[in-house]
């Protein structure tokens, strides 16, 4: 973990980003559709165009105010060693995520990524956070853990937020390709086309007012709640 020259540091940091943002990280990211499965079953998302609209809306209306802002705050708190604020943030996310499957999914991903990194790196903040999760004093939400780990790995805030959006976009594109279904190249075209939006949202997230944390997306919440009752389901949310 120690590197001396700035050159080594930045190389390290890029690999660290690629590692944590890797969609194949074994945390079960692809078993959660976060509402998309309901949209597909109700034929609202039914082709490449509607899938693209869905993903864009999720990024700019949902992620921006929810998981991405959470990640930014977590990164800031962890970087400043403000652990009480970090724990408080985790509890606030539990109170904000009202659809049960979305809340549980966020905790599943969060605790898995925590388990992986607690075995890869030795860091007292990670240990302290993990102990709180084990003691059930906090839940360990995905975005909070992502912020904590990237801060510890020396990933700068902007890259952390940027990679998080990218990871979210890849997950949604992959799910859409499977669920709708779409052709692989359709999926890649959507993903590539999202790059400017992801960069714009990253900038906006960095300066977003904290009071915007958890802004509700009513229709999405409803579809996520309806997912609990879908007759046949491939996804956990």
């Amino acid at each position, binding site marked *: 973990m120690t590197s001396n020259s700035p050159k080594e540091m930045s190389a390290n940091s890029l690999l660290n980003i690629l590692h944590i943002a890797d969609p194949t990280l074994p945390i079960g990211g692809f078993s959660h559709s976060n*509402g998309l499965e309901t949209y597909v079953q109700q034929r609202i998302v039914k082709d490449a165009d509607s899938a693209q609209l869905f993903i864009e*809306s*999720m990024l700019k209306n949902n992620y921006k105010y929810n998981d991405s802002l959470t990640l930014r705050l977590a990164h800031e708190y962890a970087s400043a060693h403000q652990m009480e604020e970090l724990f408080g943030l985790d509890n606030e996310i539990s109170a904000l995520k*009202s*659809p049960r499957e979305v809340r549980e999914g966020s905790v599943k991903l969060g605790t898995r990524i925590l388990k992986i990194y607690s075995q890869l790196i030795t860091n007292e903040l990670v240990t302290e956070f993990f102990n709180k999760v084990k003691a059930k004093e906090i839940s360990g939400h995905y975005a909070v853990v992502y912020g904590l780990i990237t801060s510890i790995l020396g990933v700068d805030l902007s890259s952390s937020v940027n990679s998080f959006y990218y990871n979210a976009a890849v997950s949604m594109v992959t799910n859409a390709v499977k669920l709708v279904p779409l052709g692989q190249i359709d999926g890649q075209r959507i993903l590539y086309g999202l790059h400017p939006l992801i960069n714009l949202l990253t900038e906006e997230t960095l300066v977003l007012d904290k009071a915007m944390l958890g802004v509700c997306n009513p*229709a999405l*919440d*409803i*579809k996520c709640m309806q997912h*609990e009752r879908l007759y046949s389901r491939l996804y956990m949310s």
Partner: protein
Amino acid sequence: MEKYSLRTGLREQTILKEAFFTPPFKLVEVRENKKNPLLEVMVMSSSPGMLNNDTYDISIEVIPNSYLNLQTQAYQRIYVSEGGTNQVMNVKVGEKAYFSHVPHPVVPHAGAKYYAENIIHLTKSSTLLWGEILTCGRKFMEGNEEFTFKKHHSLTKVYVDNELVFKDNLYVEPLKINIKDLGLYESYTHQGSLFFLAPDTDISERIELIYSSLENVEGIDFGISKIRDNAYLLRILGNGGEKLFKIFSKIRKEEDGLINARETELCKQN
């Protein structure tokens, strides 16, 4: 600043122990059956709505073992004003106490700016039913004012023994977002949220009942989910305030009725 505050008291039934209000408000007891243990209070207002940079300061205390339903008289209109309008509502519900509040829908007129903060403190044995409905503005008037308000921000926080268990951050700035986006309002114009929490209750039964009562209602989209083992959140989208208000009010009357029935049963046993 415009204010009202009330505190319940207890005799054989819940009484209105302290009521304080400044114009335009007035608090009136409206308990239909005078023998009912549940106190029903209506907030009346002589103002057509919130205007002139109004700041409403509301404080409710439901003392241990008492039961209160707080009603509104009419839709809450928000008029355009320079500095925006604000509302702060602090609610404290004591041990084994009950509080239900399903106000009429909020109607933000063209240019309206509104900020509200609702802070609710419960204990482990308190029961709460809390509703909120936001309309798109005066949709059916001439020169349709659908989503022409400037900003609507309503924050609700529910604590149980100082632990945050539910937070809702309703923020709509129509000029800055596309309201029809997937995940936002889609094809609807009205939204409502209803939160319920009760001690030692398996909430699944209530969730099933509400689900089956709404399953076949046309013109709405809804979801209901467990927030905790003893709490649910119901979210609805629709195209009219009256329909959502009726749905929420029906659930509210049922919960109010259970409180009255439970207490009457206890009295008989004693």
